[in-house]
Each structure stands twice: as C-alpha cells, then as structure tokens.
C-alpha cells in the first residue's frame, strides 16, 4: 500500500466516525465494528460487523458506512462487507469508550 493509500484509509476511518451505533451511542470505529479498510485503485473495501446478527440496525449501519466513505475525496466506489466472524466482543471497544459505557473489564 502506498503512502497516499495509507492516507486515504486514515481519512476513510475518520469519516466513518459519523456513523453511531444507536444502542451504544458511540461511533462504530471506537466501538471496534470496523474490521478492515483497504483501497484498491480508488475502490474502498470495508469489512465491518455489528453487535447482533439479524439486528434491524445492521443494514442501516452498513448503508451509513457506505454513505460516509463515499464522501471522502479520492474514493471512487465503496464495497462494504458485513461479517459476524469473528463475533464482536466488548473487548474490541477502545479503552476510553469502554469505561464511559460502563462495561466490565473484559478479557
């Protein structure tokens, strides 16, 4: 990955912070929902998860991720994959957000 592409990945990750999980009330990047962001010739590939399979919010979250990544200059197309492997765990939340949510110290 080139420096430009690294920079674009950082910009996309920053842009995804506008998407908030309605239940937990924090952005999905800090919650650890974004498993991977990569760039391939202007096309962004994002792999993400949600707390629960079948949750009615999951499709909206996926759409929100696509919408916000599209707005980043230099991104020509966005492809979002929703996966539940591995399953999301509260241990994936960034430490500062975890304590503010009142989560137990977890593995």
């Amino acid at each position, binding site marked *: 990955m080139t420096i430009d592409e690294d920079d674009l990945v950082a910009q996309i990750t920053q842009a995804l912070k506008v998407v908030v999980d309605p239940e937990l009330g924090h952005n999905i990047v800090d919650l650890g929902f974004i498993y991977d962001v990569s760039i391939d010739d202007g096309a962004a590939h994002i792999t993400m998860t949600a707390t629960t399979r079948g949750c*009615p919010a999951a499709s909206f979250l996926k759409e929100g991720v696509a*919408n916000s990544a599209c707005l980043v200059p230099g991104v020509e197309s966005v492809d979002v994959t929703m996966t539940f492997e591995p399953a999301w765990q509260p241990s994936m939340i960034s430490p500062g957000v975890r304590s503010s949510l009142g989560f137990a110290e977890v593995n």
Partner: protein
Amino acid sequence: MIGTSLCRWANSYFAVAILWLLLAEGLIVVGFGFPNSDIGGPDTLVIVHIVCIGWVSTVLCGALFQFVPVLVARPLYAERLTLPALALLTLGLTVLLAGFLALGGHFNGPPWLLPFGASLLIAGFALVVANLGMTLWSARPLPGPARFVAGGLACVCVTAVFGGMFSLVLSGTAIGAQWPDLLESGVPIHAIAGLGGWLTFTAMGVSYRLLAMFMLAPDGDARLGRPAWLAGVAALTIGLVGGVLALWRMTGLNPALLLAGASALLSLAAYGRDVLGLYEARKRRTLELNTRMSLVAVASLVAAALLAAALLATSSFPLHVGTIAFLVAFGWLTGLVLANLYKIVPFLTWLETYGPVMGRVPTPRVQDLVAERRALKWFVLFFAGSWAATLMLLIDAAFGFRVAVAVVMLATLGLSEEFIRARRLADVTGPLRLPAGAAAPHLLVSRN
C-alpha cells in the same frame, strides 16, 4: 439476509393493546368482575379476555412480527398479513366481549355473538401463526429462543380451538350440547395453553435474546435455556394430554395438573437461574431502565411461583387462583411487556427516523429519545400497585384491590405518555432532533 426491516404496523399493535389494557384496568377500578363477582362468571371473563387477548396477545403479536426475524435472522414471511390479523383480532375480541356481556344479562344480544367472535379471533390468530410459523420454518434448525416461540405458537392454536368449542357450548348451540362436561375439564387446558404456553413460554424465549442483547451477555452456548425448555414442554404436554384424558373421563384432572405444575415450577426455576446467569455474565455493568424493570418483572414471576407452591402446600390454592392469575398477568406479563415497550418503541422510532440518514449527518442515540428518571416513577408505581393489588386479593380486601389497580392504571397512563413522547421525538433537543433528510415518524404507522 443480515439485517431485517421494520414491521410497518408494530406500533399500531402496541397502541391498540395499550387501549385494551387501560379499558381492563378501568373496569376493575369501577368494580366490574372479580373479585366483586364470580371468578368464572361472564363479567370476569370480559376482563380476563381483554387482558389476555386485547392487551398481552396483541402486544406480543406486534413484538413477534418485529423480533422473530431478529431471532432467526430471516425476514418476516408476509408483512401484508399483519394488518388484517390486527383487524380480525380487534373485531373478534369486541364481538366476543359483547357475547359475554349478553351472557351476563347486561343486554339482550343474539346467541351467535360468542361463536362469531371466537371465529374471527381464530381467523386472526391463524394469520399470526401462519406468518410467524412460515418465518420460523424458513430458519430450521431453530436457535433456542425461537423454539420457545414455536412452542408458544402451538399452544395458541390449542387455546383458540378450546375457546371456539366453549363458545359453542356457552351459546347453547346443538353442537355444543354434545359436550356437557367440556367447560369443567376444558377450562384448565384453555388457561394452561393460553397463559402458560402462549403468553409465558413465548415471553420467556424472546426475553432470553432481548436480555442478552441489552445486557451484552454471552448467549452463544447452545445449552442455554435447554432445561427450561425441556421442563416447560413436559409441563405443557402433561397438562394438555392429562386434560384431554380427563375430558374423556379416563383419569381425574388433579394428578395431571399437579405433575404439570411441578414441571412448570422446574422450568421457571431453570429460567430464573438462566436469567441470573446472564445478569452475572453481563458485559454492560450499568443497565438501562428497560432491563432493570424486566428483571423486576421476572422477580414477580418467581414470587408467583413461590406463592403458588405455598398455597398448594397449605391446600388453599383453589381459594386463591385469582390472586396468582393477577400476579402473573400484571406483575410478570404486563410488567415485562411495559418494560420492553420502553425500549422497543424508541428503538424502532430511532431506526425509522435516523437510520436512513446514518453516515450523512450526526444522529442522536436511542437513549436520547427517552427520559429514564421521569419514567422510573411510573414503573415504581406500576410494580408497587401490582404487588399491593395482589396482597389485597390475598386478604380479600376488594376495595383495597380496586384502589391499588387505580394506581396501576395511573402508571399505565404515565408510561403511555412516555411512549408517545418517544414517537414524537419530544425529548430530543437541538439540531439533532430532525437533521437534514430525516422525517418525523407518524405515531402509529412506520415507514419501512
């Protein structure tokens, strides 16, 4: 399919259900039905059916249309059947109640009211069972919580069939006259299948998933809920088969009911232990009001089971069937439903309003749609009123019971206002309330 969509009419189901609940509470407050009149009399049947069909069944159907797809990660089989089902259930119950009122001599109604009302109700429940059943069928093998729902759906069929047969007996038809003993042995089957199988068993299954979701407790263990499921199925099978055998005069009814009761207690004990286990394993330490109040409702169910066991041990159970039924219907089922509506209504409202603009503009949280401190007082009043009313029934204080139910009714009105405020986004302040591109939701119908 990963996500499931919103059920268009879920909020209509909730609204109709709450109106029925308020009507039942109002009737009790003015002294209609038990304990002022006979527990098996037509006036009490009016209240029992308003609570069980109008309130709990209607709200449960609305919630199941939304959450069975979540339980099995599949879309609802036929969204278009949900509104006709609501219409049939509401109209059927209205006609059935008119039939009971005529039976009680309140007006001079035709004898076909009861069977006609029952037929409409059976048609309504058939649409519900077909819709949810096909959704579950598409998701075999079923995960644990969904099995409870499947068991509940089987039980609502049994309840409806017996209800239909009773309507033929009570209205004095020629067919009904062939079953002179049906009411005596059939009523326990009708009640066990309805209250125990359909309402309680289904609520238990859904609560496994919802409690785990809201407390972020691990529920991936396939064994979770299995003892409660097995003991519950045993209780229902013994109760139903024993009841049918008693109906054919092959055995007495009491041994079957005792065995079924013992299995039901085992099932409830296993369920209580599972809920406690989920609570202890929760990753989310600070629990939201809906979860805390659900746990209080579970405590009411445990209290009802202990009270039933104590009454059985002292042979005074038959005297206090009404007390146990009230505690189960209000402390457990109504409490659990109101606690979960306090989450479901804002959650669905959030998805409908802010889901489509997610990623484009900043959005509020679901919790920004509610004011927990304000709602807490209504829940406290609700549970205090329900328990006080149970106590009043236990000591035969009919007037005290009515006063306590008036408190419950006040709490219901307070919580209804909270639900309406959530739909109106009344507690979301500033520019986050309706950002560009977001549309305010309608009170009763969701865009999907």
